[in-house]
């Protein structure tokens, strides 16, 4: 099972800097990836000046654009899929 956890910062500072646009991307990908994508929400990730921010599998990504976030999530998903194949193939 591939699992990616994405946690958008819903704090007011990140919201002002375009957090909602990241939320839209996450919603789109959720439809595509289904259970593979776990969606969380954070109230603040303590890097307000650099927002909009997001946590991806426990790692902090600052100043994200919707395109960047989409690419990051899809790349992560591909990598995990490959790993899964490798382990099940053995």
């Amino acid at each position: 099972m591939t699992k990616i956890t994405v946690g958008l910062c819903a704090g007011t500072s990140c919201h002002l800097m375009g957090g909602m646009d990241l939320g839209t991307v996450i919603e789109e990908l959720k439809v595509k990836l289904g259970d593979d994508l776990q969606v969380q929400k954070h109230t603040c990730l303590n890097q307000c000046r650099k927002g909009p921010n997001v946590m991806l599998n426990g790692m902090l990504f600052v100043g994200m654009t919707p395109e960047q976030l989409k690419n990051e999530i899809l790349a992560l998903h591909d990598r995990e899929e490959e790993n899964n194949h490798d382990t099940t193939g053995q």
Partner: protein
Amino acid sequence: MTLQVNEVTKIRRKVMTETARLHWNGNLIKEIDQLPERLTAEHEHRYRCCEFKEKAIYAERIKLAMGLSLAPEHAKKRLSTLARHSLTHSHEKNRSQVEVIDIACDGCPIDKYFITNACRNCLGHNCQQACRRGAITIVGNQAYIDQSKCVECGMCRKACKYGAILEVHRPCEAACPVNAVIADQNRKAIIDNGKCTDCGNCMVSCPFGAISDHSQLLKIIDWLKGEEKTVAMVAPAIIGQMGQKEKLGPLFQALKQLGFDRVEEVSFGADLVALGESEEFANRVPVKDPYMLSSCCPAFVKFVKIHRPGQAEYLSTMVSPMVAMAKTLREDLPLAKIVFIGPCVAKKREAMESKVVDGVLTFEELAALFVAADINLATMEEAQEEASKASKDGQGFAAAGGVRAAMVNGIKRFADADFRGGSAQGLEECLAQLKLLEKSEASFNFLEGMACSGGCLGGPGALVDNRQTKRFLDVRGSQLECQNSGDNRLAIEKLKDLGHSLHKSSKK
């Protein structure tokens, strides 16, 4: 148009936030001179040719954030000198609301038509034949437009079978429905204040972020920190703007934390307007007048007055929901500072002229102020809201078609009224409908005119795309106890009290 936060929007918001933060913390005069430098350093991407120009542009943006005009007399002064001036003087009255930041304006090409490499140098030369000015010649292997002869009629573009002729619009000019944005000799944009309706469309359209309006953040911070009572009046379009879906509890709590003594919804003022305007309609149409125009959108009102003066007499005499709400509050709060919070740029002038509303913030400016004051609404999700005094009709004023819908319900009190409502969003559509009314060709006899597409939800000061906020608006509307203005007892009583003072012609 989808609302997306692009880089220039982020820069504008950052400047607002940091300017507000300095003043909130009492460091404005001391640190403002270093702000352009700090912002240039913080922002890794460099958009301009050099750091010097980048800093100069930041300085101009800071002036607008401090509520100052970009007049030449402000050009050479230090920001701290200007800040001191801004804090102690009330702002110049009759100036423009929207300004072009000259050095940020790219002076986009203004040759409207030009021929691309897709030109095949065909035998037909349809373009050449279509041009009545003889502006097209064949140079080398391609057609070429002599710009000194071109009158921008566009016939060549229509004639070319390859679609090789490109039509270029400057985004700001294209966004302005009344041609108030024009180019000066240096191809930089300037705004013709005689034509401008303050709608704010050009601000959001410029890819260089070169057009902006004046903010009132500094004086509002002073009021919040000062002794006077302060009231925040939020426009119905605020629902969903701060990221809490249809919930208003967190917003109300955050506004109180910011220092507002009272928070009120302008939707209640909209109920008053729906009641008053439907009564007015029943009295005027069709006996005295053939039709009536709504008066709640200040950019639409200004548009009619400037560009359709012959139809101005058909505007409703009702004040806007903002002013109506302020008048109800003034009764018990004669000295309080009343601040309207909405998505609108044109409200800033309307408020100033109304004399009952002291200040205006856009949603964007409010969010910047929250951030400046370290207030985070995401931590207040649990905050409960009090029962709303407004009806769903009143709240519905925020979306295109909402005023008409409220009128349909309001007019039911007058059994024999012949009400046929129409609505228009965006000034182009408003113009088309006004022309129909003038020629007596319209199927409606009441027109709701909204300068922004989507209504107020689509205003230039909004933070969230209006298709999303419309959903939140509908959800909250369906939860309200009172659905129609006509059932709003409190509003009916208030209207009786205030009666004439809610009409613009009255002296009171």
